[in-house]
């Protein structure tokens, strides 16, 4: 069934279709409608799970820590300061190997106050042990929430589904809502083997000595690596069930491209328009939209790039003292490889500034001509 949905409602719809047992959430702009929608569905009797209101994001994730350890499928959504406030719990939930799924609606971090889209909030949670999926359409948001549960429950790691604040969260798009029964067949009920149960009293999270801690982290690293294959398999299965297939990235007109834009999130859609415009002008442009930031698909990226075909990496984020975060990750992923094309970075649209087709074309042309700086990312703004 097709419906016109805003990104926030598509996210909430994904959680409902995944038949989550427990939602615990706290409102924040621009995520608020995700939790409002679930509260409304609960009140109407359309959502059978529990909806818990809490006094902070820290408590929201703490409740999910408790609920997931007791064996429930759990969901929450947040943004920006809320995600930063949750930070301690993100490490905790990942270390506890709980497959919680959370939607993060990208928004810049204060100070100064800013409400608009910026990936600094989610990317600054890079080292918490959460998988991160970046979506470019509302359809992909809904589909990815459902897939995230299957992936997370298979590799025992939590997953963050990320969408751009306002650009997707508040924008209406036609979305195909999968049939509930077919989602049930695709996503079986969550059945963890070790839970809080008085019949088998276990202790969770107790002090681990350095040797045990090291081994647990090593196992986590192995499962994070394994997740790359699981993401591919689940994306293929999803395609077979629902006709939309997903992978680690989405390549557009890259086969014969002389230079390739590398994007993520909704910018990935604008980039397709930029590629088409450049192609009309006679340039062989392409766009590689990365869907997965953690696990970082380094092997897949290395297999994809071609010698001498430069990459123009667009970052709507910045690591002070470093440079664009995707830019750094991509360079690190390619450094030890045989095929090592030039990589150029562009920092654009921080705090929600427009990343237009024109701006992307400009970045692509600079990259093609080798006019961009190589060591550091260039800061580019839309002139209008």
């Amino acid at each position, binding site marked *: 069934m097709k419906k016109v949905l805003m990104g926030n409602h598509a996210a909430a719809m994904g959680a409902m279709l995944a038949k989550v*047992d*427990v939602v*615990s959430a706290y409102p924040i702009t621009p995520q608020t409608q995700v939790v409002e929608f679930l509260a409304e569905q609960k009140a109407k009797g359309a959502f059978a*799970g*529990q909806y*818990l*209101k*809490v*006094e*902070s994001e*820290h*408590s*929201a994730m*703490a*409740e*999910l*820590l*408790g*609920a*997931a*350890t*007791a*064996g*429930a*499928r759990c969901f929450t959504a947040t943004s920006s300061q809320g995600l930063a406030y949750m930070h*301690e*719990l993100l490490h*905790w939930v990942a270390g506890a190997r709980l497959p919680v799924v959370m939607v993060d609606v990208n928004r810049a971090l204060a100070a100064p106050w800013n409400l608009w889209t910026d990936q600094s909030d989610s990317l600054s949670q890079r080292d918490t042990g959460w998988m991160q999926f970046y979506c470019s359409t509302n359809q992909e948001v809904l589909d990815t929430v459902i897939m995230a549960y299957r992936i997370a429950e298979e590799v025992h790691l939590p997953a963050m589904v990320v969408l751009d604040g306002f650009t997707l969260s508040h924008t209406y798009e036609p979305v195909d809502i999968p049939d509930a029964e077919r989602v049930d067949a695709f996503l079986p009920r969550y059945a963890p083997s070790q*839970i*809080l*149960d*008085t019949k*088998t*009293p*276990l*202790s*969770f*999270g*107790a*002090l*681990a*000595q350095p040797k*045990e801690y090291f081994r647990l982290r090593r196992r986590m690293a192995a499962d994070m690596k394994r997740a790359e294959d699981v993401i591919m398999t689940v994306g293929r299965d999803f395609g077979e069930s629902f006709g939309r297939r997903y992978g680690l990235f989405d390549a557009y007109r890259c086969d014969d491209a002389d230079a390739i834009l590398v994007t993520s999130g909704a910018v990935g859609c604008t980039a397709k328009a930029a590629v088409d415009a450049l192609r009309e002008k006679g340039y062989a442009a392409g766009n590689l939209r990365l869907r997965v930031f953690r696990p970082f698909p380094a092997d897949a990226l290395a297999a994809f790039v071609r010698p001498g075909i430069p990459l123009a990496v667009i970052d709507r984020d910045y690591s002070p003292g470093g440079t664009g975060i995707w830019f750094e990750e991509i360079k690190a992923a390619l450094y030890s490889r045989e095929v090592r094309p030039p990589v150029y970075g562009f920092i654009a649209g921080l705090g929600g500034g427009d990343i237009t087709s024109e701006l992307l074309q400009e970045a692509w042309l600079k990259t093609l001509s080798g006019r961009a700086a190589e060591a550091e990312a260039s800061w580019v703004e839309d002139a209008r």
Partner: protein
Amino acid sequence: MTEGNGRVPTDIVKRAIKPSVPSSELMTPGHLACQGCAATLSMRYALKGLGSETVLVIPACCWTVLAGPAPRSAVGVPLLHAPFAAAAATACGVKAGLRARGDQTTQVVAWAGDGGTFDIGLQSLSGAAERNEDIIYVCYDNEAYMNTGIQRSGGTPAHAWTMTTPGSSGSDLPKKDLDAILRAHHIPYMATATVAYPEDMVRKFSKARQIKGFRFIHILSPCPPGWKTEPDQTVRLSRLAVQTGLFMVYEVEQGKMRLSVPVPKRKPVGEYLAGQGRFKNFTPADVEAVQKSVDESWARLADEKA
């Protein structure tokens, strides 16, 4: 039971003793507490009252260590270790998760120290109390951050020595009136207890277990290393805290307060304060000030009753 095992006189066994504290044990002797730790005794009594259908949620506190390192556990019930600031929220989540599995009966208990309750965990505690979540929250109050080596918390009494309130006058701040904060949440049940009155403590836990909604139990928990006392003084000090009137042992049900251990004639507070190394710099004027504040709170209580 074999009669006449050489330790228990046969005639006593024949009289079929009914112990005033249940003989069931859900705590094992293999915990890692210091000698004379009241928090350990409190857990033992609490579990006797709660029974085996209990899940414990423990934030950072002494009990994080006492329960034993992985893969061992000193308690015979499921235990979830939780972040410092999130005991109440994590416990609410466990309750929700159990409900999702169709389990309506298991009792979820958050078990936190005074730092995790008075200070860093207060927001989460207040939220859960205000929403009347169906959990029991226990604060074992040893009146400082003891697990990290004796630093002042909101539960530290005025002028007590701690590592962060050194010098002769100790902490210059009074103890936070946490019970008043909890009472203002109008929860169905709250109580205070000490290990000097084990029957009372066990009874309160069994009673709390029968009540729905948010329940709060505040235990004064002497700590020999932190209070600078001998381990064999723990029960005596727990009793003196009550008999001097410094720590009232009571219950509040549906807003009605009832003293569980009436103290018709209060002992001078000096008896409690003396011998505790943390109060060793107390001058007679300091003791008098404590006595005055205790007298005032009992006078207030009498006024309220009148």
